[in-house]
């Protein structure tokens, strides 16, 4: 294993198109390994045999800050000087300066993996950050719904105003991302008839039914014991095809359970409405989707009558 592994991006059909984190890491590697005075190979023993024997030699790099330096806000003097003028007190002004600094870091450090993930994905999501348990996130979101639906009132006016403002802000944060780079995930369970192991899919990472169906097809309908001798990715060729799950041409249909407990066919309501009412998904055998059959037939008719 040579150090400073440099992996080229986009090297034709054989390379990975699905993972954006690969893109970022490669950029990161280019910045940090090659440009720095990282200690050369002799500083780190690579052979497993020696490390197993415990007799390897590792020399500390002499501290002189000669190792890879990551980009900090200091590397962008114009931004720094503008913000350095504000007083560093624990008040909202300094916190706004620090957050604009972090924005500077975020935008300037385009080689950072998380941002590259975001940029490349076209979404602003870092999965699992900040590290808050899904249970807590769901509880905070559900607080709003409880407040809204029960028509809760308090006779203490100022408390009511303050509390509901607090709740709105809290819930708002947990429900949507605003313009932040860190968007909340909305994971729902997906089960497919005949497959015992369910999966979870993040609805907020998809903007449309087509994208969702594509992900689900990859998860469930793709044959993972890939028989492809060349090892090249089949996915690229499938990109252009319309979703089988949505157009009724497959043996399976995509259904969902809504908040009222009813099972519906996916795709009938606007995407946003779907996301706000879906509880879980099920890829159902077409033969079992009897209660939903009329919709299914309608869809098939609509498809057939579409001009090619």
């Amino acid at each position, binding site marked *: 294993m040579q150090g400073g592994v440099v992996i080229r991006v986009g090297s034709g059909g054989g*390379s990975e198109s699905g993972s954006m984190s690969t893109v970022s890491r490669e950029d990161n590697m280019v910045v940090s390994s090659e440009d720095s005075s990282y200690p050369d190979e002799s500083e780190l023993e690579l052979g497993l045999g020696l*490390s197993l024997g415990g007799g390897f030699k590792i020399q500390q790099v002499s501290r002189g800050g000669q*190792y890879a330096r990551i980009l900090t806000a200091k590397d962008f003097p114009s931004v720094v000087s503008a913000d350095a003028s504000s007083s560093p007190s624990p008040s909202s002004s300094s916190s706004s300066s620090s957050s604009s600094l972090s924005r500077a870091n975020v935008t300037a450090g385009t080689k950072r993996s998380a941002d590259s993930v975001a940029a490349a994905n076209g979404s602003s999501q870092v999965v699992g950050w900040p590290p808050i348990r899904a249970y807590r996130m769901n509880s905070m979101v559900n607080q709003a719904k409880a407040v809204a639906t029960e028509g809760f009132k308090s006779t203490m006016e100022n408390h009511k105003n303050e509390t509901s403002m607090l709740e709105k802000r809290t819930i708002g944060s947990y429900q949507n991302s605003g313009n932040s780079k860190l968007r909340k995930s909305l994971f729902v369970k997906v089960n497919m008839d005949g497959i015992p192991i369910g999966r979870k899919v993040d609805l907020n990472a998809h903007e449309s039914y087509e994208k969702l169906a594509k992900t689900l097809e990859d998860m469930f309908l793709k044959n993972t014991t890939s028989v492809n001798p060349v090892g090249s990715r089949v996915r690229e060729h499938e990109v252009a095809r319309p979703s089988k799950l949505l157009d009724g041409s497959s043996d399976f249909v995509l259904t969902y359970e809504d908040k009222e407990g009813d099972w519906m066919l996916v795709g009938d309501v606007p995407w946003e409405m779907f996301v706000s009412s879906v509880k879980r998904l099920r890829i159902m055998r077409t033969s079992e989707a009897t209660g939903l059959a009329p919709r299914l037939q309608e869809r098939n008719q609509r498809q057939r009558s579409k001009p090619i």
Partner: protein
Amino acid sequence: MQKKMAYSFPDEVLEHVFSFIQSDKDRNAVSMVCKSWYEIERWCRRKIFIGNCYAVSPRIMIRRFPEIRSVELKGKPHFADFNLVPEGWGGYILPWIVEMAGAYPWLEEIRLKRMVVTDESLELIAKSFKNFKVLVLSFCEGFSTDGLAAIAASCKNLKELDLRESEVDDLSGHWLSHFPETYTSLVSLNISCLGSDEVSFSALERLVGRCPNLRTLQLNRAVPLDKIATILRRAPQLVEFGTGTYAAELRPDVFSNLAGAFSSCKELRSLSGFWDVVPAYLPAIYSVCSRISSLNLSYATIQSHDLIKLVCHCPSLQRLLVLDYIEDSGLEALASSCKDLQELRVFPSDPFGAEPNVSLTEQGLVAVSLGCPKLQSVLYFCHQMTNSALVNIAQNRPNLTRFRLCIIAPRKPDYVTLEPLDVGFGAIVQHCKDLRRLSLSGLLTDRVFEYIGTYAKKLEMLSVAFAGDSDLGLHHVLSGCESLRKLEIRDCSFGDKALLANAAKLETMRSLWMSSCSVSFGACKLLGQKMPRLNVEVIDERGPPDSRPESCPVEKLYIYRSVAGPRFDMPPFVWTMDDEDSALRLS
């Protein structure tokens, strides 16, 4: 000539002596003294803790310890809490239950964390263990209220049912009614994770009323505030109580009823729940506050002044969980009122907001570190930090054992000096010599890892995100942290070198998690081939790793030591690198 052992006690005497030795570590040490002690110890061990369910198989456990009464198992890696482990990864309890049903008919206690528990498993537990007493399911999933009904119906001696934050499929609220009318042994019930339709209140009320030993009761959110008084009056002996929703229209009769009910609970020491809080109802608990040692307000969306009023009523407080609405001013009040505070957790109210919404900064934590001499455990979400604050905290509180800091924006530097936070965290590990758990955040270079490797000799668990520059960082940790058991890393540019150079270290640890790093598939294969006692699992949802170049980094990597060999219950997106030539898992 055979040399007789000087101490030839009968086995029963040794067994009696060993019965006073409870901790796993001590028991393990005892078993290593000599063969006869190993034999005696294994026959009289009653409790077992398995930190990674894949490190050992049920058969191996049963073979060595035939008389176990209490089992504790953990499944998924910690980062599963943050959706980093895809669904279907594993951690199934059923195979364990199946084996234990045959081998341990007298099993009394099962405690699980992050495992997949099905209704079938719960039904098997209910059927197989006649003296079953304790079921704790933390952060588990896969079961429904049907499984709970089976437990309720069959486990006549059940004392504890704790569903801590598990994901339960709601099918019916009537599972509670499956506890027979003759059942009276409940001591602890935590159903706070259940949804609205999952608990019948009248059944709950009757259950509480007929169980005189009930000490812990944590209700789910659906239980309205005006029902609390009813419950408390039936169980004034409660020590730990979790409310449901703490909101109602303000009515004096409801308030006084509630306050009266609380005041009759002389043993109450711990309060939690507090969803949807109406601040005007908080004074109802003031009568018990002076004795309260643990308070979980982490779902209470109330403002700083209400929080301050509350904590100032709680001088005996040892543990506080709260939202960042408490702000620096609230934490200062906490520091002056609660001198016995040992654990503080501050959660973010607005984690995805572009700007901080409350005035909670590093100053709040500094104040608590200064004012609370017994503070040991910290979990703190905030938007800004400085090296000097961290140095202050370290110097004030060298007795810290757990320090988890989450600066919400990744890679954020010291907001005053714009430097990385290496020096600050370095001070933490240098001064807090008994630090066992550390979570890093903010802008960090390889230097912080050098500090950690140099000073954090008692560190057992380290969580790293968006940090470091190069493999040297990882190498410092792996080579320097002698007590390291669990290491979890995400989004750091650590690659093959440090991992391969410290392969032996991995066998001394429970597990290593690396996701969105730069470890190549080739390195994983090499590690799997050379280290037979490690399971090297590659998690990659892009498809088989050998369909990409060997130098291609894997998405996620989970390495753990195991005497059970590679597992066979993996989903299609997990591959074990084992010592066969082909790294492809044969399905």
